[in-house]
């Protein structure tokens, strides 16, 4: 009876997955095999392996990597400090609140902040420096992306750091481990799940960023997301757009496997011990 009811309640879930996860992926795969006139072809895949798209793939990965690393470097200590504070839920809230504001709105705000007549350049000129071109550089692109993604990194890390038994750290220190050694051998391994979840939540969307590449980087940075947008909306070459999307899906799948696999192993080992 129990299992019957269980499988019945799963039906909506299966329908959902079939309609909104599996069907779209199949459609994307199907479209990627069509040329402009709707005939079957592998041309799009051939096209992907030309210098333009390979270079674009590399630069997408490179920027996604930098964004993820910076997010991680800021978020880990931040999450740790917040978890030790008295009003930690309040502090967490303060970090989450900006993500309630529309992304486009925040991006436009940065155009104003980074602009020639913006506050940063006003500050630079009052302390005697020359005005700098900040907007439309890769640095401003990375800065804004990091700003946008940081909550997604802090949240999972905070959850795992918060659950961490503080006694373990004290024990490690008592037993003579240095602070660095404790962090490296006790704290990081125990919060690995949070770190991995954070990396997934940042790296994967960062790979397919678009809009910001135009508004903040002025197209000085081109990612795979930009190319997909252009293929669908401007060129109307749905085949090529889908092909790029197929590769993005493959890349993301690989990342999920890399960041998820060890967890399973560990789980298995734990089960074995139990």
């Amino acid at each position, binding site marked *: 009876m129990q299992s019957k009811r269980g499988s019945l309640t799963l039906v909506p879930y299966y329908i959902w997955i079939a309609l909104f996860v599996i069907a779209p992926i199949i459609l994307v795969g199907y479209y990627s095999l069509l040329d*402009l006139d709707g005939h079957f072809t592998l041309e799009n895949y051939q096209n992907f392996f030309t210098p333009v798209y390979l270079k674009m793939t590399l630069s997408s990965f490179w920027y996604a990597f930098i964004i993820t690393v910076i997010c991680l470097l800021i978020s880990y200590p931040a999450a740790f400090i917040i978890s030790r504070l008295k009003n930690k839920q309040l502090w967490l809230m303060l970090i989450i609140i900006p993500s309630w504001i529309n992304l486009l709105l925040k991006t436009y705000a940065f*155009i104003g902040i980074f602009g020639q007549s913006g506050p940063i350049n006003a500050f630079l000129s009052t302390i005697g420096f020359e005005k700098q071109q900040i*907007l439309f550089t890769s640095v401003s692109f990375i800065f804004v992306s990091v700003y946008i993604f940081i909550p997604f990194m802090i949240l999972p890390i905070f959850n795992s750091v918060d659950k961490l038994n503080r006694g373990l750290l004290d024990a490690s220190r008592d037993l003579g481990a240095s602070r660095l050694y404790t962090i490296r051998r006790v704290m990081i391994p125990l919060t690995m799940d949070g770190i991995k979840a954070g990396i997934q939540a940042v790296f994967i969307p960062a790979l397919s960023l678009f809009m910001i590449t*135009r508004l903040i980087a*002025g*197209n*000085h940075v081109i990612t795979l997301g930009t190319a997909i947008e252009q293929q669908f*909306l401007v060129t*109307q070459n749905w085949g090529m757009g889908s092909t790029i999307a197929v590769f993005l899906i493959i890349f993301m799948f690989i990342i999920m496997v890399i960041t998820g696999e060890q967890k399973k192993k560990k789980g298995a080992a734990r089960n074995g011990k139990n």
Partner: protein
Amino acid sequence: MKNLVKASIAILVVCVALIFITKSLDTNASKSGKNILTVYNWGEYIDPALLKKFEKETGIHVVYETFDSNEAMITKVEQGGTNYDIAIPSEYTIEQMKEKDLLLPVDHSKIPNLKNIEPDFLNLDFDKNNSYSIPYFWGTVGIVYNEKMLTKKLDFTSWDQLWDPSLKGKVLLVDSAREVLGMSLNSMNMSLNETDSTKLQKATDKLIDLSPNVQAVIGDEVTQLMVNGDAPVALTWSGQAADMMYDNEDLTYTVPDEGSNLWFDNMVIPKTSKNVDGAHKFINFMLDPENAAQNADYVGYSTPNKAALKLLDPEVTSDERYYPSAEVRKNLHVYKNLGKEKIGEYNELFLKFKMSLK
């Protein structure tokens, strides 16, 4: 569990209430029966007061929706599920829509105000006899620049001045393949509608040489950036330039001598129209001299309506930057629909250029 049930019921109640409200709003809107006219237009491209006036005069309720690119518009019309009665695409898109059989013919006998349109703007290649389209606005592509910010004196009578070394990191371009590649083609005295791949490659190579000078390739944000003085030079459309100059007096707009693009936006009746009669009334209403003048004043682009020209500020209508003489117009060319494949090539080359930006 109890809380969960309570929450679920609350959500259900809210959903039902919302459905009810939207339903009743819909019936309110369609109370006038078939007297609804759905207009699909570019953003910021009509004086809203005119829509009110039209509603008052005809009793037809106007539903107004906007798009931001010809391609997005055509995709939406093509996929159906919409009932736009009026759309305002550019000329090469009209060619495309005609090919795809997405338009209804326009009945000229229902549009007496057609006589107000300057004959030069009628019977053009993209739509002979204006069987499917009626001119709305026209304009050019050119260069807007801020004289006070230029370190070297340039007047942009030639496109080649954009390549000047003194403009390092100072040029803004629009994020549109045909405008940017077209500018490069024009600078080498080639046609905007070039389809020869080696010539297109040449134009791309020349653009790649421009990349050190490019500050950014962006969209409508150009207006704000130029007004704020973030950049001294931008490639842009005449109407957008008019907006900028309105807010910043140091700006000037010019169309280089080698020639440039001349474009037309036209009113069409998509096949999905449910109120063809109302659509004709709307077109006729927009061609009324007074209405056309009011609209041109608000939007800032050039009107093809010669009767309306007389009502506009002579300072604007005698300004060659907005209303170039027939002689200058000879050097300006209209985009042709080059077909999906060539457009794809243009965009691939444009992408290559954008990838060369450091």
